[in-house]
């Protein structure tokens, strides 16, 4: 065998350099778009920031106003969604990790849960429209919260299942050996041990549902006035952004940008917090 010809070796090196160069370029492109989107939101949003955002209601076209009712509404929607979705999600994750394990039923639920995780949120909105809005006869905050709860659910199920399965088997054996029933083992030993992971899942879920817009269009809708009544249409930040951004009025555009900035900062802070918690656990 002779040594490879220099020309061939040169060609292979060139292909390698080209491919890795393109890969680096692709990464750069991704980062540029990230900066472009965040930068645009920051510049337009910061120009519209001010105390009026939390003291005044969403205005009619042309008038001055803020986002107070929408911020309150969004907070309520997310809060109720967490109160409804989180317990069900944690319980389902508990079943998968502690009772179902690798049984076919548990594997089926994991599979279905992963599908739900990626299911189009607009369809989940239609689902809630059919089961809540249509029977009750009107759009309502409750319906919006239920829709967000359905989107939160699979996130919580998955992280709960995964983190609980990471708890060492020796902890379980030690607890059971002391004569504790299984439910006490789960609530008093496994939950505390998996606490950080479950909390991370919850935070990731909150980050996900805070920005959801499409399902709220058919459920909570919007409300121009201050309302604390979840039985009626409820103002919320994403739908306000949607309506104001698509309007022809400059004052509405600037409020939409302010809402977009608040929403983006909130979502990013929550997801970074979740990631930091997660890293603290693995180290």
């Amino acid at each position, binding site marked *: 065998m002779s040594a490879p010809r220099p020309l061939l070796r040169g060609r*292979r090196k060139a292909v*390698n350099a080209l*491919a*890795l160069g*393109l*890969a*680096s370029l*692709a*990464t750069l*492109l*991704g*980062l540029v778009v*990230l900066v*472009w*989107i965040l930068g*645009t*939101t920051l510049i*337009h949003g910061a120009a519209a920031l001010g105390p009026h955002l939390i003291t005044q209601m969403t205005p009619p076209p042309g008038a001055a106003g803020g986002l107070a009712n929408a911020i309150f509404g969004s907070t309520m929607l997310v809060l109720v969604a967490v109160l409804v979705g989180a*317990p*069900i999600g944690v*319980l*389902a994750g*508990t*079943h*998968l990790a502690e*009772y*179902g394990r690798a049984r076919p039923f*548990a594997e*089926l*639920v994991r599979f*279905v849960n*992963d*599908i739900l995780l*990626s299911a*189009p*949120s*607009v*369809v989940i909105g*239609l*689902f809630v*429209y*059919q*089961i809540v809005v249509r029977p009750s006869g009107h759009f309502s905050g409750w319906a919006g919260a239920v829709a967000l709860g359905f989107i939160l*659910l699979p996130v919580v*199920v998955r992280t709960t299942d995964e983190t609980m399965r990471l708890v060492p088997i020796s902890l379980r054996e030690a607890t059971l050996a002391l004569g504790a*029933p*299984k*439910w*006490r083992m789960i609530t008093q030993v496994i939950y505390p041990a998996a606490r950080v992971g479950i909390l991370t899942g919850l935070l990731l879920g909150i980050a996900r549902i805070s*920005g959801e*817009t499409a399902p709220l*269009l058919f459920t909570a*809708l919007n409300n121009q006035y201050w309302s604390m009544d979840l039985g009626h249409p409820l103002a919320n930040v*994403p739908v306000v952004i*949607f309506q104001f951004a*698509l309007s022809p009025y400059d004052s509405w555009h600037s409020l939409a940008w302010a809402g977009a900035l608040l*929403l*983006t900062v909130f*979502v*990013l802070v929550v997801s970074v917090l979740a990631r930091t918690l997660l890293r603290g656990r693995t180290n």
Partner: protein
Amino acid sequence: MAHAGARGDSIFGGLALAATAFVLLVLAGIALSTLIGGWPAFARFGASFVARTAWDPVQRDFGALVPIYGTIVTAVLSMLLAVPIAFGIAIFLTEVAPRPLAGPISAAIELLAGIPSIIYGMWGLFVFVPFMADWVDPWLAASLGRLPVLGALFSGPPLGLGMLTAGIILGVMVVPFVAAVMRDVFTLVPSALRESAFALGATRWEVVWHVVLPYTRTAVVGGIFLGLGRALGETMAVTFVLGNAHDFNLSLLAPSTSIAAAIANEFTEADSATYLSALIALGFILFVVTFIVLVFAKLLLLRLARQAGR
């Protein structure tokens, strides 16, 4: 004492089982409720509902072809853009980037996935649409638009709105999902395989192309289909930039609509039971299509997980 424990166990276990069954119920509920809601439209227009371009709220005559076409075209465009870029990012993160750099860049790309889709929509409408209208569309119409057959895809006034713009924004949204899956499965390749290839004198690119990619092929395709599932169902980002036009137009530069965009735009305006039912029927079609794509994606991903577990 022991009796109380057994009682607590059956209550707690029962609750957990009920919550688990609830997850299955949600999926079945989505499918059933949209089928029932869309039934009047399916019954009225029959199977041809999916093959007709009519969309006339006044005459109450509806067909799903234009939104279905828009959904498929924008999703395919987005994958054409997202797959090579995501592949590049995954290669960069696993083969090129020095360790201290890979972590932060990985996190930054994941941030891109965390930005709410309505922010993409606003950015698209106020920044990217004018960019396309001023720079890209006129250039495309003047160059590719003059070609004999292909030209039909790039004709029309440079509005900036349309399937091309929507496809690009969807592509940007999908990149982090596909890149994350590719990065994760690339690290599953046994180091003995990679090291053997390096020992034989292979370059980094040759290791990726001839060793890493063949080993992870099914999971990579799974990741691509996961991204496709996202792209098909994405709503807010495309609603802002598609232009919501129900006229059938071959041109990628002309306003169009997609299933998700039509539902989001028109739901609160639907003034007749037939109109509402037609929109919910669109939702059912979207659910069935994404369900099939996602099941396919998950099955492919599971195959590599099993292979790596052995």
